[in-house]
């Protein structure tokens, strides 16, 4: 079996053709095969051009050729044999070239010119597939059990560590190493419970990060990159859920819906789930929040948001800004009159903010505040200037749910 894998690729043009698809998949992770074909306009040679020789055609026509191709594809799936978090070869290379990360270095040797690697701390890093580079060497690939152990290490010893700082650096490291774990899973076509266990923790980590690092400068944390990877991992996870039984499915369907609030694609997907999943309490709440958003009822939405747990609030939090803006807009139109006197503390209560923050929010939206009262007017409402409002200042609704939850328990899901 191993011989087959290590055989020269040149001898088997079909296999080469299949492997060549992999780089495309990585470079454009989020683009499906169909979109790729349309964009890159690649075509099988048999589809276009001159009619081929008769005997090849006969073979082809009888469908045998296709079956043979399928079988070959099955045999050639790489199986990893690397039992440590990082392949020996990479560890040695990076140590020799002084490319170890701060967290991978043997304590005591950090200040040296050539820091030594800590074998229990080095994790395989993400590397783009490149022409001429073989990403499928079994000695470089980690089997599913090792991948899960790696994820546990990353969560417990790095992400949840009380001493490693700053968390932006922790995030960078864990983000990259998790990406490498996913890459190993793709190459080995891992599926089932192992895949689900890794992806669930990845999704929880990325959602938590989207909240914790909200507001950090762009050079330290890019919310868009986090979002791209979160969406990919989430789609992959939801696809895994379509076969077999998975105890956490409701939790993640709800998280997906809350994170993608307002997306018709996500809502339609949820509506098509089986009844028993949709009627579970966690989904019921998520669906109510979604409905309130679609009906543009921010009062109801913010009230329901109080019942969400910490991670769900993290998933929802980026929509709160839109939600509060909608409320101010609707009220500006609905209460627009010269004699309007809407109590500020009442508005603060509805917005789930304290009074000073409410004041700040009103001013940013052109809503006039006179002492303890708000004077709504449809003509004075304006959209806030870009970047004027910092989402991170308005996190109280989410903050107070964290209480004494540890990062580890959040990511492993034992809350």
């Amino acid at each position: 079996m191993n011989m087959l894998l290590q055989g020269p690729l040149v001898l088997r043009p079909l296999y080469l053709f299949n492997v060549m698809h992999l780089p495309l998949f990585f470079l454009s992770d989020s683009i499906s095969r169909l979109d790729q074909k349309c964009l890159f306009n690649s075509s099988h040679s048999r589809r276009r051009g001159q009619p081929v020789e008769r005997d090849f055609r006969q073979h082809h026509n009888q469908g045998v050729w296709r079956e043979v191709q399928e079988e070959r594809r099955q045999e050639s799936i790489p199986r990893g044999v690397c039992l440590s978090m990082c392949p020996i070869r990479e560890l040695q290379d990076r140590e020799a070239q002084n490319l170890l990360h701060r967290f991978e270095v043997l304590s005591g040797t950090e200040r040296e010119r050539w820091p030594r690697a800590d074998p229990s701390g080095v994790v395989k890093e993400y590397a783009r597939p490149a022409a001429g580079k073989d990403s499928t060497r079994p000695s470089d690939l980690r089997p599913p059990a090792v991948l899960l152990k790696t994820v546990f290490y990353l969560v417990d010893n790095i992400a949840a560590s009380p001493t490693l700082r700053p968390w932006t650096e922790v995030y960078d490291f864990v983000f990259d190493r998790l990406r490498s774990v996913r890459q190993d899973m793709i190459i080995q076509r891992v599926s089932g419970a192992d895949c689900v266990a890794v992806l669930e923790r990845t999704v929880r980590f990325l959602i938590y990060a989207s909240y914790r690092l909200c507001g950090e400068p762009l050079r330290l944390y890019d919310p868009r990159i986090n979002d791209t990877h979160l969406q990919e991992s989430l789609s992959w996870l939801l696809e895994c859920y379509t076969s077999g039984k998975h105890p956490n499915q409701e939790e993640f369907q709800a998280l997906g819906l809350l994170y993608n609030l307002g997306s018709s694609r996500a809502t339609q997907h949820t509506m098509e789930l089986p009844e028993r999943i949709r009627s579970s309490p966690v989904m019921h709440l998520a669906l109510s929040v979604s409905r309130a958003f679609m009906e543009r009822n921010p009062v109801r939405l913010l009230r329901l948001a109080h019942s969400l747990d910490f991670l769900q609030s993290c998933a929802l939090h980026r929509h709160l800004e839109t939600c509060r803006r909608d409320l101010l807009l609707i009220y500006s139109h609905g209460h627009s009159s010269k004699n309007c006197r809407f109590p500020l503390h009442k508005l603060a209560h509805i917005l789930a903010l304290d009074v000073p923050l409410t004041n700040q929010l009103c001013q940013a939206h052109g809503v006039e505040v006179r002492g303890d009262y708000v004077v709504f007017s449809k003509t004075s409402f304006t959209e806030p200037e870009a970047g004027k409002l910092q989402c991170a200042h308005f996190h109280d609704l989410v903050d107070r749910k964290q209480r004494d939850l540890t990062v580890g328990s959040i990511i492993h899901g034992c809350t």
Partner: protein
Amino acid sequence: MLLTCSQVYEAIDNHEGSFCAELLSFKHPHVANPRLQLASPEEKCQQVLEVPYDEMVAAHLRCTYAVSNHDFVEAYKCQTLVVQYPFGISGDYFGYIFSSLPIPEGFDDCRMIFQAEQQLLRKGKGKLGDMLEKAAEQLMGCFRVCASDNRAGIDDSKKWGMLFLINQLFKIYFKINKLHLCKPLIRAIDSSNLKDDYSMAQRVTYKYYVGRKAMFDSDYKPAEEYLSFSFQHCHRSSQRNKRMILIYLLPVKMLLGHMPNHQLLRKYDLMQFADVTKAVSEGNLLLLNEALAKHETFFIRCGIFLILEKLKIITYRNLFKKVYQLLKTHQLPLDAFLVALKMMQVEEVDIDEVQCILANLICEGHIKGYISHQHQKLVVSKANPFPLLSSSS
């Protein structure tokens, strides 16, 4: 068997495109003939016809054999071959012959693709959408050939095949839920100068899909235009198609304030909408929620459940209009609306939410007036406080 082959030969020779297409299509009765259902007809075909027609006909006959054995996966593979040949031809002479063929007929058997898909799923092989994606890729290839055909004159141009191919592609994209891929196709047709000259049947199908896409994108006015066109011009005898168009036209019209009458619903067997219509026009939220729950499966399957939920706003408006008509005053206490909502068994609603719903209706232009928080009243305009829905959407 030889007779059929020679018929094909004659048809090609005489440039009788549509007859030839019929002989290769699955709608023609010849496919039921067991003498034509052969596993390896290549030799016989080669006797009568030239390359590549012999391949095409042989593939078609193998296809009939496969279908008779209910092996749809094999049938699909054969059908793809039949379809490829007109496009594989590069020689000018062949190109001339084939451009006169209404290439479409070979693709009409899209249901075969769907059946092949079902079979694969039952066997546990392949993911949902795999087969459809492959079919879409093939069609896309054919479409590119058609669209870039600048050589022949307008009568012989392959551009006539474009709309049909687009309709087939739409069918597949809707099935696999990748609607964003429709956009380039719509652009292609919009910029084409043949767009009003295609056959009415093709245009009706095209507008149906474009209307559905517009609905999905929440562009209700254009959606109404497209779907109305489709419905009006759809042939009287295609009841099934008319019903399909109506399923999407009704929610759009209801959102714009036009309720269908019972005769229409009964005529097209769409009584699921009856309760919904009644609820919306009466402002009866309770009935609306019940009706949506009762026919939930049907609405979700058609993909209109979410749009029907948007009717809630219209229902609120109608309900509140009744409150106004009952109280006969322009200064309505907010409590009255709260009572109305509680009567409709709306869960957990309080006075703050009532204010929000009213404010939203004012913001959308469905109510003319303002809320006075201090007096806890809704003050409405003395002139036309509840403007017509069609004017305020």
